[in-house]
């Protein structure tokens, strides 16, 4: 191996796995343009775990689907770039994107009772995922399916393979969905609130196992949730999303200990903990604004206790104490 290729390789190793710049995903509806994602920047290293946190409707899922190229009309990516491993996903042809989906980038959905096809057996749904990307025999694909089930802690995998989704519990179905996501050893998994529909105890187990698996295999993970507490113990970094924009990004511990954006602070104060036991939990006042008519300037302005005249102009992301913040009056 000569020096130039080695240099090129290290460059490839250093470049982030995923880099999203100025992503705008809009829906053209009769009522107007819904700017579900409106200028999102995300950078993710290899094997890194990112928590994407925000209220319902803030555009988390749409961000995830944009990465996979699964935005259907009337939605479209209006602007921005998504670079995965040096390749631009937005301008890429559909067949190339298909080859990445489920192979390089996998996704886990929120509701396990809806993600598996009700009329197909588990083995069918797993084997097809392997064969969509690799020219292997059904026997070999089945073996991989079995291994994947073992990996996510499903007992008696051979029997499970022969069942239909309705024969499995919610937690078991989500494990199957995770196994499907893992089956082709992707480099990136996007998990869209995969534990929201499950019991708290199962939730904890699954989060723990997914983290362990990602660390073991070096898989990067974007964990989408509306619950900051869920990602606090899971993510390396957290990105807080509000009304289609990332308002604050930083290392998990920094961001939780010292939130800079008033919205992040509001989120943290609304999480129950030991220190708040017995006291009334703080709540962010007001409601999420309609994406159809966002307030001028900072979208959080009308709910913000620290809003000033400056907030009538939308703040740009600024680097502050190792974090990116979109706020005129960050807490310091």
């Amino acid at each position, binding site marked *: 191996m000569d020096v130039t290729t080695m240099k090129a390789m290290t460059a490839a190793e250093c470049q982030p796995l995923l880099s999203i710049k100025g992503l705008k995903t809009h829906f053209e509806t009769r009522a107007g343009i819904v700017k579900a994602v409106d200028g999102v920047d995300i950078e993710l290293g290899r094997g890194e775990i990112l928590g994407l946190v925000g209220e319902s409707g803030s555009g988390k899922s749409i961000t995830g689907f944009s990465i996979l190229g699964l935005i259907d009309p009337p939605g479209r990516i209006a602007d921005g770039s998504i670079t995965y491993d040096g390749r631009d996903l937005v301008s890429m042809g559909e067949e190339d994107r298909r080859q990445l989906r489920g192979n390089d980038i996998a*996704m886990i959905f929120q509701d396990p009772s*809806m993600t598996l096809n009700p*009329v197909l057996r588990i083995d*069918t749904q797993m084997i*097809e995922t392997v064969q*969509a990307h690799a020219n292997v025999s059904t026997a070999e694909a089945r073996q991989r399916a079995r291994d994947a089930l073992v990996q996510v802690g499903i007992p008696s995998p051979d029997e499970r393979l022969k069942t239909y*989704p*309705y024969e499995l519990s919610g937690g078991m179905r989500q494990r199957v969905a995770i196994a*499907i996501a893992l089956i082709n050893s992707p480099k990136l998994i996007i998990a869209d609130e995969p534990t929201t529909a499950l019991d708290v105890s199962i939730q904890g187990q699954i989060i723990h196992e997914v983290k362990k698996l990602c660390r073991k295999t070096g898989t990067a993970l974007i964990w989408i949730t509306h619950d900051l507490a869920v990602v606090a113990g899971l993510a390396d970094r957290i990105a807080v999303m509000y009304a289609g924009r990332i308002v604050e990004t930083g290392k998990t511990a920094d961001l939780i200990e010292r939130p800079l954006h008033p919205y992040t602070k509001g989120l943290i104060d609304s999480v129950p903990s030991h220190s708040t036991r017995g006291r009334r939990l703080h709540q962010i006042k007001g409601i999420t604004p309609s994406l159809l008519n966002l307030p001028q300037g900072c979208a959080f302005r009308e709910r913000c206790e620290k809003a000033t005249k400056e907030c009538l102009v939308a703040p740009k992301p600024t680097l502050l104490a190792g974090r990116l913040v979109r706020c005129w009056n960050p807490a310091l």
Partner: protein
Amino acid sequence: MPVFIINRLLQAIGVILVMSVLVFVGLYLIGDPTSMLVSPEATEIERQALRKALGLDQSIWIQYLTFLGNAAHGDFGRSFLTGQPALQLIVERMPATVELVVVAMTFALVVGVPLGILAGLRPKAPSSKAIMTGSILGFSLPNFWIGLMLIMLFAVYLGVLPASARGETVNIGGVALSIFTLDGWQHLALPALTLGMAKAALIIRVTRAATREVLPMDYIKFARAKGLRPSRILKVHLLKNILIPIVTVAGLEFGQAIAFAVVTESVFSWPGMGKLLIDSIITLDRPVVVAYLIMMVFFLVILNLVIDILYIAIDPSAGEKVRD
């Protein structure tokens, strides 16, 4: 499972009993069949003798009970008109009808399902709108009118296809079938097309509606997120789910067509069961009408059972619900 089959059969017997009473009373009220059977000049004594011979001199309840007793032994009486056993008359006509309906339904499915999926996949495309307009025409135009137009075009104007009767048949295992001869196909073409177009129109609508319902489902999006090829998503993930309503509707339509293909068979003088039924009603040939309707109820119940079993084969979770 067996319990649900037994339940269905018991249900069928109940329906058959109720129906036989209704048909019996109905035909009794409509009129006296002897007036159709004897010449207008016949004397009252001759009429009385005929009534006695046919058992029509008894009260309606005695007649009904006699009928039930005989029917329990598989004897549905003889045609007033020809004297042949009613059951035999019906069974002889059955292959013609079944053949016509099977060909028509196959046509309806082969044409209707792909067009329905196409219209469901891209509901706003001009091609989809054309398909839907066609399907509205297909089931709002009366069947006999479509039949007559086809006759006009192919038989009268172009002169390429015959307009009536069954054509050459081949005897297979005692059953006369026309699908094995060219002449048979030529005769089958127009009636099958007439019946098939109306059914295809319905299948298109059902398929489109089901497609539109299944497409936004999470499991379709998940299938895409797995990187499956679009053809696989269509042929496996979509098709298997929309098959459930399609099988249900196609099954019911099939039964409907077998039992009451009256209009098409009349237009094309197709010697099937529908033609027999309408002829027997006109001549008040009570044994044939009663036997026919009873057989059809029985057939429809069995057909429903088959549909349910198919349904469970497609969607095993439905079987769970039926068993509960």
